[in-house]
């Protein structure tokens, strides 16, 4: 019998398992966020190791670890750091602590429970890239995380870990706590930078694709996610080989994953990357323990609200982007939302479409108008006043945001074969397509539920409109 994971009361939602724990190793301690506990448990050793090497050597260590970004796109951190154009100074590090993707709950735990680990990660990154200014952007609606980080920064400045001449070396860097004010789109890295410049948080037009070339104040800027940076102290302390010994060659290390919705034990788990499957997570005795009331699984969102949905057919896929992508979805931000057989699918999809429509910054017409249209059409379908014509209209509007085939999973029962991720889009960022993703998944996999809702409603008063992409 495998031992069941243990919930930790002072870490609401986190469930401790026997699997290797890289970023959550201190969560068991009630005072995990204090500098005393941090130092007692190996804290700031990774920084010491880093400072005894050259910045290039530290950058090399992280590159060799193949640490993939945990913010959603999964881009290797060490490679991204190399994108700063040579000879352009100053450069900045901006930490993305804006966690607000539907279903995602991990960065807030890391900020509240182990802020020093994050700070040490920032320092290691600054050293490797050659920076002396870092901004730690925390989501506005997280009063406790802001408090814990402020406290930790104050302690670390006091103790000589941040500021001038860190640990008696020449290395000097400031870390400034910054916080947002409620706007999901600000999590997109160029919008994050706009917000940090004091502007409306609207994404910038691409190219350049990475703010590493043109970012904060037009200077080279590295944006990394909280969980990504929280891995660095461990990597420096234990070496890249130890990191790569966990997980797979292409997806090494661990990942924090939040499983919510209709499971027996919803929670945040640190899992082995690359090998753990969705079945392990949802049905594993040490993890969620199956669907509530032993009901059947209807569908699940595998990677945050933006991700196309999976059904039981995809349960055996591992946490490995190269396998999830061809099956029509993405791993995104490590957020799984589970729907059991009792779920009203159109109503569930509407909660996501409403979210993205509401969070559109308004810069691109297809997102601003299309998102609102999708929401309105979905609303009338869900409340029983939609018509058959509305089902086609959803797709028509969706295609103005994402022309061509939208990705979806395969399904044996329905005879569907997968359309691989990603998609084409007419918008600057992924908020527009994300409003369509749940609608498209729900319609593709559960069309009969939509048809039942519109059955008997007449199309008679329908005004024909033509939308061209």
């Amino acid at each position, binding site marked *: 019998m495998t031992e069941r994971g243990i919930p930790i009361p002072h870490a609401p*939602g986190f469930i401790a398992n026997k699997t290797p724990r890289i970023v959550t190793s201190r969560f068991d301690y009630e005072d995990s966020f204090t500098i005393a506990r941090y130092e007692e448990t190996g804290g700031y050793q990774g920084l010491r190791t880093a*400072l*005894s*090497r*050259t910045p290039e*050597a530290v950058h090399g260590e992280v590159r060799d670890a193949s640490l993939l970004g945990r913010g959603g796109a999964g881009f290797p951190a060490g490679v991204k750091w190399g994108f700063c154009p040579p000879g352009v*100074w100053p450069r900045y590090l901006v930490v993305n602590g804006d966690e*607000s*993707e*539907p*279903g*995602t*709950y991990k*960065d807030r735990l890391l900020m509240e429970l182990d802020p020093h680990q994050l700070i040490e990660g920032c320092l290691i990154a600054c050293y490797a890239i*050659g920076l*002396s*200014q870092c901004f730690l952007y925390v989501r*506005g*609606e*997280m*009063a*406790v995380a802001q*408090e814990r980080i*402020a*406290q930790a920064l*104050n302690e670390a400045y*006091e103790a000589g870990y*941040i*500021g*001038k001449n860190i640990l008696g070396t*020449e290395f*000097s860097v*400031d870390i*400034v706590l*910054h*916080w947002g*004010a*409620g*706007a999901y789109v600000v999590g997109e890295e160029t919008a994050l930078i706009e*917000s*940090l*410049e*004091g*502007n*409306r948080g609207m994404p910038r037009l691409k190219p350049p694709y990475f703010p590493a070339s043109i970012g904060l104040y037009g200077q080279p800027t590295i944006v990394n996610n909280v969980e990504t940076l929280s891995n660095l102290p461990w990597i420096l302390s234990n070496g890249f080989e130890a990191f790569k010994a966990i997980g797979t060659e292409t997806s090494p290390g661990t990942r924090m994953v*939040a499983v*919510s*919705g*209709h499971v027996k034990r*919803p*929670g945040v788990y640190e899992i082995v990357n690359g090998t753990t499957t969705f079945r392990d997570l949802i049905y594993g005795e040490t993890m969620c323990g199956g669907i509530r009331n032993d009901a059947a699984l209807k569908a699940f*969102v595998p990677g945050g609200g933006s991700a196309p949905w999976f059904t039981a057919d995809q349960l055996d896929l591992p946490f490995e982007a190269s396998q999830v992508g061809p099956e029509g979805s993405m791993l995104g931000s490590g957020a799984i*939302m589970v*729907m059991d057989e009792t*779920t009203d699918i159109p109503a*569930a999809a509407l*909660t996501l479409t409403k*979210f993205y429509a*509401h969070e559109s*910054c308004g810069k691109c017409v297809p997102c601003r108008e299309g998102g609102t249209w999708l929401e309105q059409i979905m609303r009338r379908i869900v409340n029983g006043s939609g018509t058959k014509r509305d089902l086609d209209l959803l797709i028509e509007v969706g295609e103005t945001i994402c022309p061509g085939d939208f990705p979806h999973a395969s399904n044996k029962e329905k005879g569907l074969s997968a359309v691989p991720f990603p998609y084409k889009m007419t918008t600057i960022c992924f908020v527009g397509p994300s409003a369509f993703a749940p609608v498209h998944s729900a319609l593709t996999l559960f069309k009969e539920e939509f048809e039942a809702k519109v059955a008997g409603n007449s199309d008679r008063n329908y005004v024909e409109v033509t939308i061209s992409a």
Partner: protein
Amino acid sequence: MTFFTEENLELAHEIIGRYPKQRSAMIPLLHLAQEQAGWVTEEAMKQIGGLIGTSSAEVLGTCSFYEMFKRHEVGRYVVNICTTMSCALMGAEELLEHAETRLGIKAGSTTSDGLFTLEGAECQAACTEAPCLQVNYRHKYRVTLSDFDHLIDELADPKNEGTPRHGVLAQIRQHIPTERSVGAMHPESVNAPPVWIEEQKEANS
């Protein structure tokens, strides 16, 4: 016309000093203003513009983009009930309806005694603890209908001091000791790598 208290004005200058460009202090200063008054007033925006060298129209432009900034008076406690997917699957709609009945107001409005503003909100990064809500941006997890009633009773009690009033976020502030600070430099006044890079290379070669 000044809005900020003397103490907050000093704090405002300290915050501005941390950024390479003054304008970056915009959102932190708007939060400071909201902390002082409970919402963001015209006078506050005017003074913030003056402090960071921009117009009050620019400040309004940024301010109006962000949901947390209230440009009218709100309740002492802003109660945000999450209605996004994970919470919706676990009964958020029922909770919101119950809250409307209990408080006698519709989502988006404030009780006549000025104590509570109720809002339907988006994902609060607590999805495994659904349904959840926030009071002045502090979480409450797995909230049942009776939990909600208790919470409201507790907050309505004038002796309650557990939750600071709307506008107050972190109660601990970052403070960078002058002697430890590297110091923010305007990006145009920097065109070379930090000096420590060469020195660290030499020390470790």
